[in-house]
């Protein structure tokens, strides 16, 4: 006879299968839509003549009330993107958490998922408002660019607007129907709504991504910018999918970090032990999701950079070896901050279990490795020096540290950082468990061997291919490094799951037993993510240099120069402060929504 657990597992599998089919239909349907549209576009092209991209002069850029057009568009676009990232990511992990709640029948997960979606609900309208501001500022300040883009993307822009209705409808049903659609089939319907919400939201993001990637790697147009009439070709441009993947993964990490910051604040202001325990648990889960998405993020970023290089060597060199090279040193500081704060939070969290004492002695070694890897990533390649400094150093590269400035060293460093962050997570996971299988010791040895072999392979690939082969192999070596890292993680998790099958707990986890300073690690994570996204947004846009659409439509505005990194950092900082202030407003709104005031004597009895 089939047990209820097995039945439950089977029904979940069936449901997941159904969801996959549904998603496939949706995606295929969307693709059909595009191809139908493309055919329509082709037919249209037979009767419609598209002009070349306009050649602009400074007079073609209206000025308005002394507003700096570039800064205005920059800040609106960045604010819109931050909120969009937040509202796209929250439903992803709300869906995951709701599914976990259904699987485990632990209502805490369902409550947490509801709280997440509740705090993001106001963010939806702010996302739309900021999108409107971005649109209007583009029309006002860059009318020719907007006209050119909207001529090519008229179809997708129309569907984009329509999809907002679908997004809103599903969101309202999902949020307001949360307590109505509980139990049995109703809960499955609700979960399906969550999936639909994600499908619509992700489609919206993909459409918007196509417009910006067209500006980087134009397709569907000839050298003069004359549109062929095939909108799908313009959408499916060279960098579209690399950006789609990178943003999808980054959004999850980002959403996790913002919700983690919310939980951290609620933890710090909690007045009861129960409340503290709840928000500690919420913060842990949010951070866990953020780290899960953070680990593959460098690979997604590397894939994007490799594709940029593949599309245009010039653009790739501008990105990594030209004027933006120093930006990656700032990025190293931020990534280092992210990894160190995420690890620090995990280490502090080990205090929730008495059994953690067995592993705390290893933390200092992990910390040393993380800092060393961070320093390698942080090492610049070419130093900008005065003549005297140049002479005393004997060249623009430091004789000993210079070799650490090249990409193979940095790839090695980031892979090592990821593996050791995973190790922190393993220790955390083990801290409250005692293995009961007889071969636990052997399993441990196997894991140590896997880690050792993996790290040795990463170091070998980095050193041998990085320093003893030519440029082509230097870049190519990064792929087996990534594969090694994934093998270490998946292999180790597999062994771990068998070792701790049927394990005993050391004791109940003491949620809420975590130092307050750990909550600041969560704030640091959220702020660093926000700022990093802004910085990388600058470089993504900046590598177009003085082109609105690369090689097709030149930027002739007075702002057609690449600002210094300091200038960009200041704009990003101002935007980040505005964004975080708005996020605080969103959280506050969510809080007062559940606060009731009973005014004595105000209403008629």
């Amino acid at each position, binding site marked *: 006879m089939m047990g209820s657990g097995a039945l439950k597992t089977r029904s979940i599998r069936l449901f997941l299968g159904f969801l996959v089919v549904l998603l496939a239909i949706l995606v295929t349907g969307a693709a059909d839509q595009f191809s139908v549209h493309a055919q329509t576009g082709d037919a249209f092209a037979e009767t419609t003549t598209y002009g070349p991209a306009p050649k602009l002069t400074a007079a073609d850029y209206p000025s308005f009330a002394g507003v700096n057009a570039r800064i205005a568009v920059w800040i609106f676009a960045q604010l819109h993107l931050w909120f969009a990232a937040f509202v796209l990511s929250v439903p992803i992990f709300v869906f995951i958490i709701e599914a976990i709640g259904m699987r485990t029948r632990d209502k805490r997960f369902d409550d947490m998922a509801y709280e997440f979606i509740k705090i993001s609900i106001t963010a939806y309208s702010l996302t739309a408002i900021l999108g409107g501001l971005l649109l209007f500022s583009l029309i006002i300040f860059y009318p020719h660019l907007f006209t050119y883009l909207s001529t090519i993307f008229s179809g997708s822009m129309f569907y984009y607007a329509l999809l907002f209705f679908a997004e809103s409808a599903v969101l309202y049903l999902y949020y307001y129907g949360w307590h109505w659609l509980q139990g049995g089939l109703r809960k499955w319907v609700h979960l399906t709504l969550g999936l639909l919400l994600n499908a619509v939201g992700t489609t919206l993001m993909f459409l918007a991504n196509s417009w910006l990637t067209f500006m980087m790697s134009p397709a569907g147009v000839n*050298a003069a910018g004359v549109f062929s009439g095939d909108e799908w070709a313009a959408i499916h441009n060279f960098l579209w999918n690399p950006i789609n993947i990178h943003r999808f993964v980054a959004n999850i990490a980002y959403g996790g970090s913002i919700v983690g910051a919310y939980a951290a*604040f609620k933890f*710090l*202001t909690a007045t009861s032990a129960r409340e503290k325990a709840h928000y500690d648990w919420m913060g842990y889960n949010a951070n866990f999701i953020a780290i899960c998405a953070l680990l593959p993020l460098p690979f997604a970023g590397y894939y994007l950079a490799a594709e940029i290089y*593949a599309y*245009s*060597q*010039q653009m790739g*060199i501008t990105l990594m070896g030209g*004027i933006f090279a*120093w930006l990656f*040193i*700032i990025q190293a*500081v*931020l990534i280092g901050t992210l990894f160190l704060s995420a690890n620090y939070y995990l280490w502090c969290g080990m205090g929730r279990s008495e059994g953690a004492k067995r592993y705390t002695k290893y933390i200092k070694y992990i910390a040393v490795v993380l800092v060393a890897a961070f320093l390698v990533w942080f090492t610049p390649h*070419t130093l*900008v*020096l*005065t*003549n*005297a400094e*140049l*002479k005393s150093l*004997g*060249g*623009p590269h430091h004789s000993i540290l210079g070799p650490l400035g090249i990409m193979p060293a940095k790839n090695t460093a980031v892979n090592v950082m990821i593996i050791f962050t995973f190790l922190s997570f393993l220790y955390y996971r083990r801290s409250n468990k005692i293995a009961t299988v007889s071969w636990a010791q052997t399993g441990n040895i196997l894991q140590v061997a896997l880690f050792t072999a993996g790290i040795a392979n990463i170091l070998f690939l980095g050193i041998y291919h990085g320093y003893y082969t*030519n*440029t*082509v192999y230097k870049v190519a070596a990064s792929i087996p490094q990534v594969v090694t890292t994934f093998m270490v993680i998946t292999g180790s998790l597999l062994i771990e799951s068998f070792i701790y099958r049927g394990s005993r707990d050391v004791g109940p986890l003491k949620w809420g037993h975590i130092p307050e300073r750990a909550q*600041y690690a969560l*704030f*640091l994570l959220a*702020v*660093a993510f926000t*700022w990093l996204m802004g910085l990388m947004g600058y470089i993504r846009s900046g590598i177009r*240099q*003085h*082109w609105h659409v*690369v*090689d097709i439509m*030149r*930027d002739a505005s007075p702002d*057609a*120069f*690449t600002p*210094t*990194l*300091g200038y*960009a*950092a*200041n704009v*990003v*900082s101002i935007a*980040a*402060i505005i964004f*975080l202030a708005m996020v605080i407003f969103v959280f506050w709104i969510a809080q007062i929504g559940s606060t009731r005031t009973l005014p004595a004597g105000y209403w008629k009895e």
Partner: protein
Amino acid sequence: MRTFLSVVVFTLMTIGFFAGYSNYGIPQIEPAPPQTDEEIDLSSMNMEQFVALGERIFSGKGTCTLCHNNLGRAPMLDAIGTNTQARLDDPRYAGGATDAESYLIESLLEPSAYVVAGFGKAGTSDTESPMPSTEGGSIALSEPEMTAVVAYLQDNGGLEITVEIPTDVGSGEAAEATEPGEPRPAFDTFEDLSDEFACEACHTITEEAGDVGPNLAGIGAARDRDYLRRALLDPNAEIAEGFEEGLMPDDLGKQLYATELEIMVDFLSQLK
């Protein structure tokens, strides 16, 4: 409220640290403004100057050295003289050139006509070159500019220079013909001279630029006027440590008017 303020202060301090580091922790590089089309006075040029122009375009506007360097991104072009015939005879050759000159021009216009083994775009089995056509896009060389590059490549590759200095420069934006034999007007600012002779293709002067030659950002503090004058007139007389001999054109002195030489010396000597 105290917690709220603590979090706000912590957040602002974090952002302040990131912004501060970006402003003061790393060098502030102000990228050069978008390149404007260079005015070329071909009428007064001899072939040596034309080749020098080609070299400037090769390492400057043409952005060729981004990839054609010793990092292995693209084939080196110094052996083009011995390689050309072999490439034209190669069954993989898909172009229509018949000699070195037409092959080089074709390579600038249609880089995929022949892709050197190992340098094609990934997954194309060396049938597609990653090099963009230099005719359009962000490079957009004019016909005289391309001819100058070919002259330089022929000279650099040990070939006989077969191209001629164009007399009819057409209506290209980059070309402005003057009457034959008419001397070029003298430049009266260092910036114009630097643009004309592409100093920043190799040197960092007022902003981060090339690192092929020594960084001149503080050269006025280290060297006197006599040294600077000599370095301009005879660049190979003394080579800065760590740099190769022969990279700086040794005929620079012949191309400069006396007033221009002094403008350059004045400018460099005040870089302290």
